[in-house]
């Protein structure tokens, strides 16, 4: 049975291989024991933040477990851009027109932007390869959104996920090869790594500051800007089902779409219900259930007709729980081939 709970220091050994998996990007997930320890410390402090105290810097780090084995991770940064600017490219179209020459042409431009500050950002999503199936993917994302729905006052009214961008047949990002590579003189992966472990001064120093004309980028880049990485369709669908949509912003490194959504319009928020423990209706479909504790949350995926979930939720009778139906609509029925996020 899948469950989600706050990461603990004792999870580090299990997290390390997930964080360091070949091909993975998730720049914000620490890769070493020491940095993971520090991240978990921050996370534990965040879960403990008492009600009423608006912790603008909370960062909540979760593990997905299956039969008590850690098989995935996910995290929420409560508010982006607090300590350092949050970088993205904003796409806009300028019009190049001359009445005399009878010319009118659209010129798309990328502007360096810090506009995606103040969002709650999902990040550091990993999943062990044998669990890359619609149920686990949907549960991972929906579960965390259920937590946000329940504890909305700790989070922004807007949510963000930087979805990985299009990759060519060699697994490389055309935008990075056109642009970032030239200024950073390193691979996309190295750049993501540096941008995550060092302060964002690196980006301020190395990224070009001037507006960029898209029509000067390579044709491949132009046609794939803002497109999601191709082998992550189920993840993408999970966000779309929740109401996330590509914004006019893209990732500065790989051109991936910045998916955004109002917290209030999340599918999981709108479809979920709060109920007394005794009042949960019998589930005829997979159901996500969560206790309402901020400090010690536990989120379970209850298979159909699951009879008893009081024990794992660690509740006494008549306490509140929040629950929602698992939504795998639009996801692939066959579970192979989902790539590394």
């Amino acid at each position, binding site marked *: 049975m899948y469950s989600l709970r706050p990461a603990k220091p004792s999870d580090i050994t299990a997290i390390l291989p997930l964080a360091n998996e070949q091909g993975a990007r998730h720049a914000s997930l620490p890769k070493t024991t020491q940095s993971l320890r520090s991240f978990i410390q921050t996370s534990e402090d965040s879960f403990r933040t008492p009600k009423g105290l608006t912790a603008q810097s909370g960062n909540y780090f979760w593990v997905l477990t299956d039969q008590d084995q850690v098989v995935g991770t996910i995290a929420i940064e409560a508010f982006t851009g607090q300590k350092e600017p949050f970088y993205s490219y904003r796409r806009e179209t300028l019009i190049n027109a001359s009445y005399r020459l009878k*010319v009118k042409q659209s010129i798309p431009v990328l502007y360096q932007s810090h506009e995606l500050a103040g969002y709650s950002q999902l990040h550091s999503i990993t999943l062990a390869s044998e669990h890359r199936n619609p149920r686990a993917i949907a549960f991972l994302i929906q579960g965390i959104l259920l937590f946000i729905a329940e504890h909305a006052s700790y989070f922004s009214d807007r949510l963000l996920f930087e979805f990985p961008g299009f990759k060519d047949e060699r697994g490389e990002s055309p935008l990075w090869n*056109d642009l970032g590579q*030239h200024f950073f003189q390193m691979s996309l992966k190295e750049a993501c790594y540096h941008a995550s472990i*060092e302060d964002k001064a690196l980006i301020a120093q190395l990224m070009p500051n*001037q507006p*960029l*004309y898209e029509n*000067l980028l390579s044709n491949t880049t132009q046609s794939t800007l803002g497109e999601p990485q191709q082998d992550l369709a189920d993840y993408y669908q999970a966000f779309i089902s929740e109401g996330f949509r590509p914004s006019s912003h893209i990732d500065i490194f790989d051109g991936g779409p910045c998916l955004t959504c109002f917290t209030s319009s999340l599918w999981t928020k709108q479809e979920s219900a709060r109920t007394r423990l005794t009042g949960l209706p019998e589930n005829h479909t997979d159901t996500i259930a969560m206790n309402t504790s901020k400090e010690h949350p536990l989120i379970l995926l209850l298979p159909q007709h699951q009879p008893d979930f009081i024990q794992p939720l660690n509740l006494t009778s008549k306490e509140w729980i929040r629950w929602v139906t698992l939504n795998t609509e639009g996801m692939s029925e066959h579970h192979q081939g989902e790539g590394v996020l």
Partner: protein
Amino acid sequence: MIVRPIQTSDLDALYALAQSVGVGMNSLPADKAYLAKKIDRAVQSFNLSLPKEQASYLFVLADDQDRALGVCGIEASIGWDEPWYTYRISQMVHACQDINIYSNTPTLFLTNDQIGYSELCSLLLHPDARGRKNGPLLSRARFMFIRQFRELFARKIFAEMRGFNDEQGQSPFWDNLGRKFFNMEFDRIDFLTGRGQRSVIAELMPKYPVYSHLLSESARACFGKVHPNTQPALEMLKQEGLRFENYIAIFDGGPVMEAYIDDLRLIKDSIVFTAEALITDNADEQPPILLSNQSLEDFRTTLSFQYRIEGNSIQLPAQVLDALNLQDNQVTVASLYARDQSQLFTMTG
């Protein structure tokens, strides 16, 4: 051969000259009405009846029958009626010492920095007149005029050189930059700029800086590169002291060559002598020198291969003196080529 101010009667000859070249000579299109206007402006300029911002001096190379076989011009001060655009190549360094990363990206910035400069333009020599130093005479005569009437011109002078394009007339610079902002063939751009639509087109060019590494290698190779046919003209300008200062033409990437006028070799080092008749007309040929009279409206520049210098006077063959049409025996002299200059100096002692 002499170089003299253009006259209204030169229109047919100028038209013939303009016809003798093809595309790419966009400041002298084969359009009679347009050329007539240009001549009119030049005539008014030599009369000093135009303000500096409008003055344009055109000269012709004339043979013994006073037929115009070449033309060259100077705009006194450009960029006033409409903006004159160039790209400046500036350096943009991005560096992070912590991880020892350093990149330098030449970047194109659209500017109007040449505003108020004088411009060398419209150089055109009839194929029949090539040889016997007619080309060097024609192009350099302008500097002699500037030397004489320095106050008519600006502090700086420039020449926008024709940029590289291939055998098919395609400009890699245009194809990779300008064309992406409005899809027009280069020869049409060339045509329009010759018809005074230059600034209309310039307004469509990208206004934000362009990082050069986003352009193709062939486009970048055009930065400051001239058309093969223009190479000799480029060499001439370099010898006379003009330099490439990182400005390029916005359409084809050709170099903008510039200098402080007072730094130009021909301005600095030309000398005024008293002219005298050369006694032995069959003297040896020497390195050619440029000679100008002191008149504005009847300005004349010619060459001489025979001369003798003594103190402040120079002896010249009768036909040279004749060609110069001197009013006062004062003649301005400079060696035709920079390499011969020291020789002239040592002769003057």
